[in-house]
C-alpha cells in the first residue's frame, strides 16, 4: 500500500513494447504516449500542452526529443546489434514526444545537443510576445513558463519589434478572468472543456502570433467545472476571481485533505497561510476524482473565516470555560431519563466523531439517535446524489440515516423528549419546530456557525471546521480517506472528538482515548470492515473498504 498507487490495469492483456529511453531498454504497454514512457523512466520532458488526462494536440512544441527507429535489413526485419537489441537509426530532426505513440524497438533521447537546442529555440519563441507581468501575475511561483525559462531560456530578448497586443483582464466567466497576452496557446483549457466538462465554449480565433483564446460569441465560461481550467493552465492566462490577488503562491502551505461537500470525497489540497485558507485545489486521485473538482465545492470554504464563527463555549448564552460548559452539559443530560433524551448527529462528521457520538449515546442510554440525510441531485460526474460526505461511515457505524427523525421531532413537539443533543446540524432542518426547541429543558449543541438552533441552546460548544481537524470519512464508493488539519480553529473552539470524549467522561463513560489515532484504533477494533487499518495506513489516496463483508481488497 503506497501513496503512488495507480488504478489496477484492465483485465484485457495489453502487449508490452520495448523502448529505449536514453540508452536503457524498458517495456511499456502498447498505446503509451512517448512522453509518458520518458517520464516513467525518470527522464522529465518539459511540456505545456500535454496533460496526462487530456488528448495530445502537440501544439506547444516544448516536448521535442530525438527519435530513433530500428534499422531494417533487406528482409524488412530489424537488424540486431551485439546486445541482441535492434540497431537504431537516429532521426536528424526532432519529434514531439506527447503526440507520438511508442512502437516496438523505438529509441528516444531526452537530452543531447539537438534536443537542448530545440528546447532553447521553442522557449525563445514562446517568450517573444509574453508580457512582463510576473510581478502582478497570480501564476508567478507555480508558472511553467517561469520554470522552463530558468532552465532553457536566454535571460534576455533578441526581439526588437513591438510585441503583439491582446485583450487583458477579460471577464469570460463568473469565476474566471482571462489574460490573452499571457496565453501560450497550449489549448489545455479548450480540451478540458471539450473532453471532460463536455461544454465546448472555448476556442482560438485569428492566426499566427495573433491567435487569441476566447469564448464562443454570446456564451460564457460558467460551467461548474470551469475552475479546473485555471488549475491546468500552465501560465497565468486563466486566473480565478476568487483567488485573484489574494496571496502569492510561494507563501501557501499545502495540506492534503478531502472535499466534504458531497459523498464523492474528491481529494483536495488546502492552501493556507498563517491560519487563513486562501484556496482549495483538486489533488490527483485516479480512484476518486482524477485531477478535477467542481467549482461550487472548491469555493465553499469562506465560511471557515466567517465573523460569526462560534469561538467561546456558552452556557445559557453566557460565556463559560470549557470545564464548566462540559460539566453543565453532562449534568443537564444526566438529569433526564434516557428515554426522554434524543441525539441528532451529522453525516458531515468524521468516522471518529460518529464513533464517539455513538459511545456517548451508549453512555447516556440514548435510544433515539439519528443523522439527517441530505439527498440532492448530482451532476453525474463529481457531485454525488448525497450531500453528506460520510453517509457510508455513519451506516457502517450502525447509525440510522433519517429513519428516526420524525419520531424525534414528534417527541420534541409532544414534550415526551425533554433533552436534545445536536451535533453539527440545524435541528430545525430535521423537522423540529423552532418554538419546540425553545421549550426543551436541555439543548446541547456542538457546531461551528450560528443557525436557528444555536440561540436556543442551553449549552453551546464551539467545534472545528473541515480544514481545522483530522479524521476519516468513507465516500459513497466505500473508500476511506483522511482529512488533515491545515489551520487551527478560531478562539477557544476545539476539535469535535475532544468535545465528545470530554462529554463521555463527564457523564461517566469510559475514557482511554487521548489522540485521534487512538480513537481510530478503538473504532477499528469494534468495526469488522476497518480491521487492520490505522490512521496512518489510510495514506494520502485512501483505502477501499469491503463493506459487503468480503475481505478488504488489497491495494497495489
Amino acid at each position, binding site marked *: 500500500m503506497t501513496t503512488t498507487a495507480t488504478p489496477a490495469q484492465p483485465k484485457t492483456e495489453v502487449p508490452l513494447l520495448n523502448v529505449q529511453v536514453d540508452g536503457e531498454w524498458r517495456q511499456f504497454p502498447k498505446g503509451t504516449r512517448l512522453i509518458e514512457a520518458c517520464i516513467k523512466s525518470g527522464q522529465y520532458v518539459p511540456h505545456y500542452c500535454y496533460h496526462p488526462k487530456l488528448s495530445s494536440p502537440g501544439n506547444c512544441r516544448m516536448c521535442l526529443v530525438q527519435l530513433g527507429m530500428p534499422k531494417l535489413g533487406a528482409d524488412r526485419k530489424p537488424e540486431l546489434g551485439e546486445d541482441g537489441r535492434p540497431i537504431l537509426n537516429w532521426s536528424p530532426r526532432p519529434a514531439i514526444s506527447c503526440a507520438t505513440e511508442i512502437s516496438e524497438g523505438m529509441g528516444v533521447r531526452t537530452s543531447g545537443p539537438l534536443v537542448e537546442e530545440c528546447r532553447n529555440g521553442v522557449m525563445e519563441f514562446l517568450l517573444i510576445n509574453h508580457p*512582463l507581468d*510576473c*510581478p*502582478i501575475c497570480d501564476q*508567478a511561483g507555480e508558472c511553467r513558463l517561469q520554470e522552463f525559462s530558468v532552465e532553457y531560456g536566454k535571460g534576455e530578448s533578441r526581439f526588437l519589434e513591438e510585441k503583439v497586443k491582446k485583450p*487583458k*483582464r477579460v471577464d469570460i466567466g463568473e469565476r474566471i478572468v482571462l489574460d490573452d497576452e499571457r496565453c501560450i496557446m497550449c489549448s489545455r483549457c479548450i480540451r478540458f472543456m471539450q473532453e471532460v466538462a463536455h461544454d465546448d465554449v472555448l476556442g482560438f480565433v485569428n492566426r499566427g502570433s495573433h491567435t487569441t483564446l476566447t469564448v464562443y460569441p454570446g456564451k460564457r465560461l460558467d460551467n461548474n467545472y470551469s475552475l479546473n481550467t485555471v488549475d491546468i493552465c500552465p501560465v497565468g492566462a486563466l486566473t480565478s476571481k476568487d483567488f*485573484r*490577488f*489574494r*496571496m*502569492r503562491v*510561494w*507563501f501557501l502551505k499545502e495540506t492534503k485533505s478531502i472535499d466534504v461537500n458531497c459523498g464523492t470525497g474528491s481529494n483536495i489540497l488546502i492552501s493556507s497561510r498563517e491560519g487563513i485558507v486562501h484556496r482549495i485545489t483538486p489533488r490527483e486521485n485516479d480512484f476518486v476524482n482524477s485531477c478535477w473538482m467542481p467549482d461550487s465545492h472548491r469555493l465553499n470554504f469562506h465560511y471557515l473565516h466567517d465573523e460569526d464563527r462560534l469561538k467561546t463555549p456558552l452556557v445559557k448564552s453566557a460565556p463559560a470555560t470549557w470545564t464548566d460548559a462540559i460539566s453543565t452539559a453532562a449534568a443537564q443530560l444526566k438529569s433526564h431519563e434516557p428515554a426522554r433524551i434524543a441525539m441528532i448527529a451529522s453525516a458531515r462528521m468524521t468516522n471518529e466523531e460518529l464513533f464517539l457520538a455513538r459511545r456517548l449515546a451508549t453512555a447516556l442510554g440514548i435510544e433515539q439517535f439519528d443523522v439527517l440525510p441530505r439527498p440532492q441531485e448530482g451532476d453525474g460526474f463529481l457531485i454525488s446524489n448525497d450531500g453528506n460526505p460520510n453517509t457510508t461511515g455513519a451506516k457502517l457505524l450502525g447509525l440510522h440515516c433519517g429513519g428516526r427523525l420524525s419520531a424525534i421531532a414528534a417527541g420534541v413537539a409532544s414534550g415526551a423528549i425533554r433533552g436534545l443533543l445536536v451535533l453539527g446540524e440545524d435541528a430545525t432542518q430535521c423537522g423540529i419546530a423552532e418554538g419546540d426547541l425553545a421549550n426543551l429543558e436541555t439543548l446541547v449543541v456542538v457546531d461551528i456557525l450560528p443557525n436557528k438552533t444555536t440561540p436556543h441552546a442551553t449549552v453551546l460548544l464551539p467545534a472545528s471546521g473541515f480544514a481545522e481537524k483530522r479524521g476519516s470519512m468513507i465516500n459513497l464508493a466505500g473508500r476511506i480517506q483522511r482529512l488533515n488539519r491545515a489551520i487551527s480553529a478560531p478562539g477557544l473552539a476545539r476539535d469535535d472528538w475532544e468535545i465528545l470524549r470530554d462529554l463521555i467522561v463527564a457523564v461517566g463513560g469510559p475514557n482511554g482515548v487521548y489522540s485521534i489515532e487512538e480513537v481510530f484504533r478503538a473504532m477499528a477494533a469494534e468495526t469488522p470492515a476497518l480491521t487492520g487499518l490505522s490512521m496512518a495506513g489510510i495514506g494520502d489516496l485512501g483505502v477501499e473498504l469491503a463493506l459487503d463483508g468480503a475481505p478488504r481488497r488489497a491495494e497495489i
Partner: protein
Amino acid sequence: MAFVVQRPKLNLAEKLYLPAVLGGLLLTIRHFFKGAAGRNVTMQYPEVKWDDHLPEWYRGAPTLVADEWGRERCVSCQLCEFICPPRAITITPEEIPNSDPWAKVEKRPKEFEIDMIRCIYCGLCEEVCPEQAIYLRKDYSITGYTRAEMKHDKAKLYELGGVKAGVVNKWNEKK
C-alpha cells in the same frame, strides 16, 4: 593539519611593557591639548545632525516611492515580504478598479506595513524589488512612543519616499 604559530621575538623595551604604556599616555595628553585649543572632533548630536555627512549609499528607513507620473510604483508582488529576513513587511494586495487611470497595472497594495522595530536596514527589499518601488532613504532617526507608532503604514511610507524617477517604464502608454 596542525601548524606552529610563529611568535614574534620581543626586544627588551617591548618585554618591559612600560614604554608602550607611556606612549599611550602621550597620545591622550596630545588629544587633551588639541581639544583645549578648540579643535573639537566630537559632533554634538542631536543639536547637530548627521544628514550632511551621510554617504550616497547610506541605508536608512525603507520607503515607497511614486514614479514621475505620480503612479505608485508598488504592484504588491510581495517579493520584499518574502525576502525580508526579520519579516518586518506585511502587504495586503488589492485589484485596481477599472475606473482608475492606472487600471492596466491591475494590482496595487491596499495596505503596506513595515514594522520599524523589526527592520534591520539590510536593503534586501530594495534589491529584490522588480518594480523599483521600495528604496532605503536616509532617514535614520526612527523613533516612537508606542509599538503601533513604529509601524509605518502605506501613507507614511509614501510620505517618506516621495518621487523617484527610474528605468521601469513598462506601464507607460506604449504598454
